[in-house]
């Protein structure tokens, strides 16, 4: 049931589906009975006013929060209770709203850490370095270098990320997520706090990622313009409830959505 978008990208079967997710902290309900799906190869946007529960949704998907009710289905299988790192190993990578890079490490090491789920040589080989450990290291370095090249961050390869300007850090973080070669890429406000130029670059990258590597992308973004250009389908949350779900146009004209947005005065 693969369909084609007008710009010729293939959209496949359902990759991830959340069913009736309800998440509460103490008494407060962050998410109430949310269901939607993400299809293979598409760019899916989750939008909504502040405190709508977008980030909570992402945290549920990446296994950081465990919802009281509801199920997460990934690649056709119901997901049991999992630690976040197990979710990562299943092939879900993500970036964070306020950059969560490893400040003490270089750009290169951050990206290499992104591949940690694929690295396996045991501690003894590591101690010896020469042999399997080095071979593995180099194999992954080659992959990472492709990403560095793709994002055009060669110049900062060995700079500690702590020293980088905000825009570049965002880019490195994207790189770290890409390095995981995940099936599904979750981007939490990839363009927050960027200037116009940086936003354009970031859009370009997201589209290229989706196109070149066929990665499925789910992103949270405030900038409506961006969302409408980028995404194939949009799901709208408000106060932890699902307002609407559909193509950018459908959503744009949905009265409930308009109301909600006028409500918060966007």
């Amino acid at each position, binding site marked *: 049931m693969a369909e084609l978008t007008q710009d010729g990208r293939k959209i496949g079967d359902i990759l991830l589906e959340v069913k009736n997710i309800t998440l509460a902290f103490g008494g407060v309900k962050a998410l109430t009975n949310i269901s939607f799906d993400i299809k293979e190869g598409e760019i899916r946007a989750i939008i909504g006013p502040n405190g709508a529960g977008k*980030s909570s949704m992402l*945290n549920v998907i990446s296994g*950081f929060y465990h919802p009281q009710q509801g199920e997460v289905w990934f690649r056709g299988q119901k997901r049991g209770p999992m630690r976040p790192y197990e979710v990562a190993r299943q092939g879900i990578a993500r970036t*964070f*709203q306020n950059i*969560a890079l490893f400040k003490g490490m270089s750009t290169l090491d951050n990206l290499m850490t992104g591949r940690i789920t694929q690295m396996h040589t045991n501690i003894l080989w590591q101690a010896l370095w020469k042999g399997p450990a080095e071979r593995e290291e180099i194999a992954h370095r080659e992959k990472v270098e492709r990403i560095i090249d793709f994002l055009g961050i060669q110049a900062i390869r060995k700079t500690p990320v702590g020293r980088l300007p905000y825009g570049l850090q965002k880019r490195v973080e994207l790189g770290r997520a890409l390095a995981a070669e995940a099936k599904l890429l979750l981007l939490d406000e990839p363009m927050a706090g960027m200037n116009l130029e940086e936003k354009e670059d970031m859009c370009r990258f997201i589209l290229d990622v989706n196109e070149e590597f066929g990665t499925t992308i789910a992103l949270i973004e405030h900038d409506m313009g961006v969302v409408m250009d980028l995404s194939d389908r949009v799901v709208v949350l408000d106060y932890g409830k699902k307002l609407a779900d559909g193509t950018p146009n459908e959503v744009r004209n949905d009265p409930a959505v308009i109301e909600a947005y006028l409500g918060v005065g966007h």
Partner: protein
Amino acid sequence: MSPELLNVLEVIINGLLAGVMYSLVALGFVLIYKASGIFNYAQGVMALFAALTLVGFQTGQIPFAHVINTIFGTHLETWGPGLPTFFAILLTMGVMVLFAYLVERIVLRHMVNQAPIILFMTTIGLAYFMEGFGDLMWGADIKTMDVGLPSGASTWFETMTAGWATEGSNYPGMYVDMLDVAAAGIAILLVVVLTLFSQYTKTGRALRAVADDHQAALTVGISLRTIWVIVWSIAGFVALVAGIMWGAKSGVQFSLSLIALKALPVLILGGFTSIPGAIVGGLIIGVGEKLFEYSIGGMLGGATENWFAYVLALFFLMFRPQGLFGERIIERV
């Protein structure tokens, strides 16, 4: 009541009394940690230093006599009969304030927004420094401290409790050291005073403000620096009191500085930021370790106090990582 029961009761009472002492030291930590986020390892040494100074003043030692003698071949010892206890205490308080001022001036103000671990290590450095300094100033020999506190067994308590025992079991009665009781009394007094201070004085409120958030403190209109000096001074007083108690109990010597180590488990138990926590924690640990030693310690070869407190705290933490009264740690992404 059966003698066994009474023995347990005795152990508990002594545990409580010891616990109060722990709380006393822990209090010093909490004050500083709340106000400046610094985990002040030097608290113990401060107690030692305070005690040394006090004794020095009382006995009229000449500071640095040892050093001077070595360098100039003189034979200085004392300058006279020494001060009456009351003045000596006042003077010592003055010294502690001066000390607090210097610490802020020379060390702390250079350390703003450093990593906690660095601050912690700095205070350890400070501890080393003060220990060396104290020894140079007053000599390293063990001194006896007498500030006129009652000491020895309390006979009426003994006789009274002896009566509780079941007939025929010639139970001697409970042993309670007057000094411990006095110490407990003073400690409680101190806590009350501190609470009142922090509740009803401008400075006190400022302190609490700082604890919550430093910016807020500045808006209260007291500079962070001043507040730090005040806090460290108060911690100094607390240290002095603790120094007096422990000094009077087991002589003024290096080991006194180790009470800091006694206070640490109290802290994790009670939480770094909570005064009530420090007190309750202290009592729990005091009672706990005494009971453990009494019941099981013997079988393990005794001296379990050295570690029991820690292991207790450790297991406790497994279930409440932020301590008894500490603020809850919420993890966010």
